[in-house]
């Protein structure tokens, strides 16, 4: 059993199954460009495909690809709708209910403290679901008690409800001292309506102890008690890892990661806490193998992006809304944040041939593109009163005066079809999928496809995957895995069974890539260099040992169980230099 498990691990890592790998480890640098002309042997092609188009191979994946045929497997990955999704994934995602909610529903069901205040003041309805309503009312009561205790130390203010008021001592003892099984059983034996009170009254440590062993629904309740607004962020991070680990549509997941990062948004910027879920689900995901122009427009109109890059507040200097030397305090004007990042980061690239004047003109074109009620889930709207009515010139193209929302759309047409954009997008894709410093010949061909097919991203990917460069020695095992790739690929390699994925998401942050929390609009670097450093390497080694020794909370690993306790082979493998590469 133990032997089989380790053999499977070795196969999954591509260390044993593919001959001649060590020969490739010594390459690079010496003869740069020529490396991209020399093809890897046929028996390494499956390893290359699995390492670049998935979050790392699981035991048995190589055999599946071999029997299906590599070409057919790639075609399927490029057409994920034709592939049935893994039912295990659906099951694991089931309790993460914010994933299918609109922003507005999330605000209502998982309210921030400000929204709770508005509910109490009657400015906003409570959630329809009676259980959830009760839970929120309890939060309110708790907050009020806390407030009473805080400022004035009013002796008459009601005290926080102690656990001894809710439960007999015997049961508290069990919850505190019992084995995990006893604690869980004691809690679950309580009547349903009492469970919420008990969670609310528990000290933080006891609640945490219960959390570790709780089934998904109970975890949900505990998370609610800790702060409902946090649930939204946790669901996002957890779903990202679950999909990376379990999805059959692996390339789709990698592209989702790539494009979210390209059009990066920082989750913790104000209203974006409730807007990013929709953004990833409805704006990024549906377009990753579609037309770039559609993807671009979807991001431009998304409340998440409008909020993140401040465009929703931008007002044209020549807008109908009066503004002048007597403008009152708080009256608004032009904000060029989105205009600049649209050109620099989303389309042309910083060397794509635009000027400061273009940035300002683009910003004027997008005035009036704003959000209805951003703090309540928000939706896109065009506000003619704040739109700049004057003529604009963007990259040499005149946009006549008197236009409305179409001014922004014209800008999107111009930049989406610009040769600099074709080149910039192709370079970034090639850097992610092929090599840190991708060969110009490949980027040229991808850019040509981009321009010929009106920015069809599936066709650009196909050009890349049909290229000799993708299958070359220059590409093969040349890149270092990102933290997300490292964590997901390790769990996949040992066939870990993930019950609770949040600790893994924390690991990804420890390794240097907090998910949804890259503050800058640049996103994380697609180059490996970013991840090659001492802090990251040590964190990877520690994670490898923890996972392989079955000490990672929330994950069960069979390999380690089969091995003797003092055998750290799997951990050493996952922490090895080879495993950090892809």
């Amino acid at each position: 059993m133990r032997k089989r498990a380790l053999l499977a691990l070795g196969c999954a890592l591509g260390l044993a199954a593919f001959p001649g790998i060590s020969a490739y480890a010594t390459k690079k640098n010496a003869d740069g460009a020529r490396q991209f002309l020399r093809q890897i042997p046929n028996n390494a092609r499956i390893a290359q495909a699995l390492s670049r188009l998935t979050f790392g191979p699981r035991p048995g994946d190589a055999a599946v690809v071999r029997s299906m045929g590599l070409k057919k497997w790639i075609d399927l990955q490029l057409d994920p709708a034709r592939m049935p999704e893994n039912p295990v994934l659906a099951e694991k995602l089931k309790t993460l209910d914010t994933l299918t909610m609109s922003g507005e529903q999330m605000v209502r069901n998982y309210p921030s403290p400000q929204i709770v205040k508005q509910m109490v003041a009657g400015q906003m309805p409570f959630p329809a679901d009676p259980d959830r309503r009760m839970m929120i009312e309890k939060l309110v009561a708790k907050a009020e008690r806390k407030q009473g205790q805080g400022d004035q130390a009013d002796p008459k203010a009601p005290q926080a409800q102690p656990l001894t008021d809710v439960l007999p001592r015997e049961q508290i003892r069990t919850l505190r001292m019992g084995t995990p099984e006893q604690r869980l059983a004691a809690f679950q034996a309580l009547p349903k309506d009492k469970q919420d009170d008990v969670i609310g009254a528990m000290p933080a440590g006891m609640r945490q102890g219960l959390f570790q062993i709780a089934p998904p629904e109970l975890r949900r309740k505990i998370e609610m008690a800790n702060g409902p607004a946090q649930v939204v962020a946790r669901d996002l991070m957890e779903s990202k890892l679950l999909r990376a680990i379990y999805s059959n549509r692996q390339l789709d997941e990698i592209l989702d990661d790539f494009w979210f990062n390209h059009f990066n948004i920082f989750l913790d910027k104000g209203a974006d806490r409730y807007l990013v879920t929709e953004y990833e689900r409805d704006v990024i995901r549906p377009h990753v193998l579609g037309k770039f122009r559609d993807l671009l427009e979807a991001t431009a109109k998304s409340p998440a992006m409008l909020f993140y890059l401040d465009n929703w507040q931008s007002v044209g200097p020549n807008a109908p809304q009066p503004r002048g030397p007597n403008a009152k305090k708080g009256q608004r004007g032009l904000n060029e944040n989105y205009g600049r990042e649209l050109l620099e980061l989303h389309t042309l690239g910083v060397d794509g041939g635009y000027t400061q004047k273009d940035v300002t003109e683009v910003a004027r074109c997008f005035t009036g593109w704003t959000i209805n009620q951003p703090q309540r889930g928000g939706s896109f709207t065009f506000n003619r009163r704040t739109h700049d009515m004057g003529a604009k010139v963007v990259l040499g193209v005149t946009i006549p005066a008197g236009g409305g929302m179409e001014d922004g759309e014209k800008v999107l047409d111009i930049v989406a079809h610009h040769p600099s954009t074709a080149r910039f997008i192709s370079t970034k894709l090639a850097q992610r999928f092929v090599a840190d410093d991708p060969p110009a010949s490949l980027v040229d061909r991808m850019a040509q496809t981009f321009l010929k097919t009106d920015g069809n991203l599936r066709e650009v990917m196909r050009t890349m995957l049909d290229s000799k460069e993708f299958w070359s020695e220059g590409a093969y095992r040349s890149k270092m895995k990102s933290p997300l790739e490292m964590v997901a690929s390790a769990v996949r390699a040992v066939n870990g069974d993930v019950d609770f994925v949040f600790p893994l998401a924390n690991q990804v942050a420890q390794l240097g890539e907090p998910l949804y929390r890259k503050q800058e609009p640049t996103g994380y670097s697609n180059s490996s260099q970013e991840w090659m450093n001492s802090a990251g390497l040590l964190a990877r080694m520690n994670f490898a040992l923890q996972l392989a020794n079955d000490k990672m909370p929330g994950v069960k690993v069979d390999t380690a169980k089969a091995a003797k306790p003092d055998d750290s082979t799997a951990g050493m493998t996952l922490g090895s230099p080879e495993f950090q590469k892809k």
Partner: protein
Amino acid sequence: MTTRRIFLRNSALAMVGVGTAPLWLKRALYAADAPSPRKKILVAIFQRGAADGLNVVVPHGEKAYYSLRPTIAIPRPSRGEKREDAAIDLDGFFGLHPSLAPLKPLFDQQHLAIVDAVGSPDPTRSHFDAQDYMESGTPGLKATHDGWMNRALPKVEGKVSPVRAVSLGTTLSRSMAGPNPAIALQSIAGFQVRDAQAAKQFQDMYMQSKDPAMQTAGRETFEAVSMLQTIQKQTYTPAAGAEYPRGKFGDSLRQIAQLIKADVGVEMAFADIGGWDHHVNEVGQRASEGQLANLLTQYGQGLTAFWQDMGDRMADVALVTMSEFGRTAHENGNRGTDHGHANSMFVMGGGVKGGKVYGKWPGLEKEQLYEGRDLALTTDFRDILGELVSKHLGNPTVKGVFPGYAPKFLGMV
């Protein structure tokens, strides 16, 4: 013959007498007259996101400042009730943002110098490019692979400390990347493989790796791990009751202080503090409130705590702060500012000639602005860094640190 040292001691003793002498000076005076074997140390702080220099070092003597920023200007210094929401005067023309009040005594004691209208001459207003240029030390050149701090490490014969260059955080800063060994460190306590036996095996594995980059990173990592082993077990209490602000920035500075005081051979340290990109609502209802004020509070408290904690060790240390570019001289339509050009820098240390705002003020009238919108640049950031590398660290080859540029020293050290 009255030696220079005795002269210094006497005049310094006079200072001790009136209670203004810094701690390090007191201890230095009573220490043996032998030259210190301790190395000079340079600490660099990067404010990512382009800090609004004009609201940090406020040109309150400039009329145009107030007309360009009708709703977000920091009010002129005041002695009255509004003192807490007004600039803190430095020299009759410039003032500090009120949230930087803890730094004022350091300025008065001449340990803190400020440079204004300083920055990178490259016209880019891209955060990414501008940070890259400032950290590589080569504005306009994208092909530079290594960072200025890596090149600035003095050449030495023989063995060097594996932790001579430390970058705080989960990734190695661009400033510090390069051929000289430099490590990224998130926390001193966590800088180890938790299983000793596995650590040994990993070490062998990385040393034998056929991937040169992996091998180098692995070797540097494990050498640093063994260097830090002894101080990992100690609990660290900052000296003189110094209180670092909560959060990543405070943690970084506290650990830099700990490393320096542990005498493990640190010569360069780098930390960053993000979140300066205030396009919207930069200033709250009062100058002492809002996003910029909150961040400056953290920043000011961090620097002050570091100063207090370091005590007399500050004699060996120079700390310099920078940000990729400044922000528009005029406020934008959302009580914020957009990407601009020149900015301000802070330099603090025992050997720094502080108490002065350096640099030539270019003015804020329309025709004085860079491209009609931003504070113009009169000092190249490499002049400041170059002087620190040359005069403070004593590295004689400053030209190699900033290729193609000859820094002009301002006489700050």
